[in-house]
């Protein structure tokens, strides 16, 4: 059993608990033991909350980091937003001693300290770098046949690479490799690195971006879109309904979070990984 501290964030447990269910089941199949009694709060969000006040953003993030640091265990994120906040906060604090001192002055009020030793990674990076592909291979019970999964990286897993250190930001390989492990066919496409647009405050631009991503996915003849972030999930699943209304375009491309796909390959049923909870159904595409 490998011990890790999961950082669930807000969106997965409070909006998409079916994704949490899929992650928990797949991690259990990978013999990972979750240490969960840490009093986390929101990471906090790297777009709106950070736009409000970066110092507050940094202080809250530093507290979350310090909690895992006290246990000397790696922190595992399942949302690209949380990953971005926690890894960038760590980078900024380690880069600027003065800033770190100011943040620690705040943490001292609750008898905590951020030292800078904690490791944070998105769960998919942990699968590759710590657990290893062999361990994933060993957990596979039922390879997924004939499913073409288009890859969507999202922005905050890879960029900025001087902070993330995950993969080549222009020619990434990680998600294709992970999809392959399940038996499904990873499909790269023209717009696989385009942003889901969620951070842009505009009535149309975010939907034009996601709609173009769907066109690119269709062009590549994929059956569904695979991703690793709940914000991207919302932009693409619920987002298709909004695109229908705003742009008068119907795409009907189901979306799958990576751990749901891995769960299926581990022999879990579509319901056990929560596929019945999606706006755009997966039905008819599996089997």
């Amino acid at each position: 059993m490998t011990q890790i501290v999961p950082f669930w964030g807000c969106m997965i447990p409070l909006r998409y608990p079916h994704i949490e269910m899929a992650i928990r089941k797949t991690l259990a199949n990978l013999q990972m033991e979750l240490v969960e009694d840490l009093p986390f709060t929101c990471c906090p969000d790297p777009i709106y909350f950070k736009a409000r006040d970066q110092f507050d953003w940094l202080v809250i993030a530093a507290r979350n980091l310090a909690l895992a640091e006290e246990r000397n265990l790696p922190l595992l994120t399942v949302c690209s937003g949380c990953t971005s906040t926690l890894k960038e906060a760590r980078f900024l604090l380690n880069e600027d001693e003065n800033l770190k001192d100011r943040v620690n002055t705040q943490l001292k009020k609750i008898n905590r300290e951020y030292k800078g030793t904690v490791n944070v990674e998105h769960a998919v990076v942990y699968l590759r770098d710590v657990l290893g592909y062999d361990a994933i291979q060993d957990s596979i019970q039922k390879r997924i046949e004939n499913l073409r999964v288009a890859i969507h990286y999202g922005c905050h897993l890879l960029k900025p690479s001087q902070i993330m250190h995950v993969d080549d930001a222009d020619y990434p390989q990680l998600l294709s490799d992970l999809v392959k492990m399940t038996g499904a066919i990873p499909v790269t496409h023209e717009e696989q690195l385009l942003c889901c647009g969620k951070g842009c405050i505009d009535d149309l631009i975010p939907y034009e971006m996601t709609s173009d991503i769907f066109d690119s996915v269709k062009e590549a003849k994929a059956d569904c879109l695979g991703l690793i972030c709940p914000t991207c999930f919302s932009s693409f699943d619920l987002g298709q309904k909004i695109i229908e209304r705003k742009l008068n375009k119907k795409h009907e491309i189901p979306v799958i979070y990576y751990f749901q796909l891995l769960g299926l390959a581990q022999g879990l049923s579509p319901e056990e990984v929560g596929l019945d909870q999606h706006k755009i159904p997966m039905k008819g595409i599996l089997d």
Partner: protein
Amino acid sequence: MSDKSTEVNFEFRQRLNKIIGGNHHNFCYQCGACVSLCPTAKYSTEFNPRTIMLMALLGLEDKLIAPDSIIWKCTNCYTCYERCPQDVRPVDVITALKNICVAEDRAPDIITRYSAGILDTGVSTPLSVAIAKRREKFGLPKFNITGYDEMKIILDREDSK
């Protein structure tokens, strides 16, 4: 451009320099590498991270610090950060500019509304009865936010507004 509009507002730039990430705007030499793959620049002809950096260098406060400022259309995708040869981190400069908007009460409502949720509860999404029930149905542990009190304490600081 009239003479007046080309005068640099150094006072504004000093203020920007003091915010996390804000001082990096000084390194911009206007090469435009940040523009080529900027998604918002592709979808909006008005948006351009290079010109936003130029506006910061000139200290065009009235244009930048407003609820309808072009900066709010940035997606925070970090592509410009990845591309910039000068470590300007344009997206971080944009975030620093947003911080000034908020301090001046010149930000879109959504920013304060959304942030208020986190400040009031410790989470960005409220725990509804429907979700609590769904969690139970899925066999998930009860969702408790236990870090809220500590969060409140660390946010209290001398210089806070």
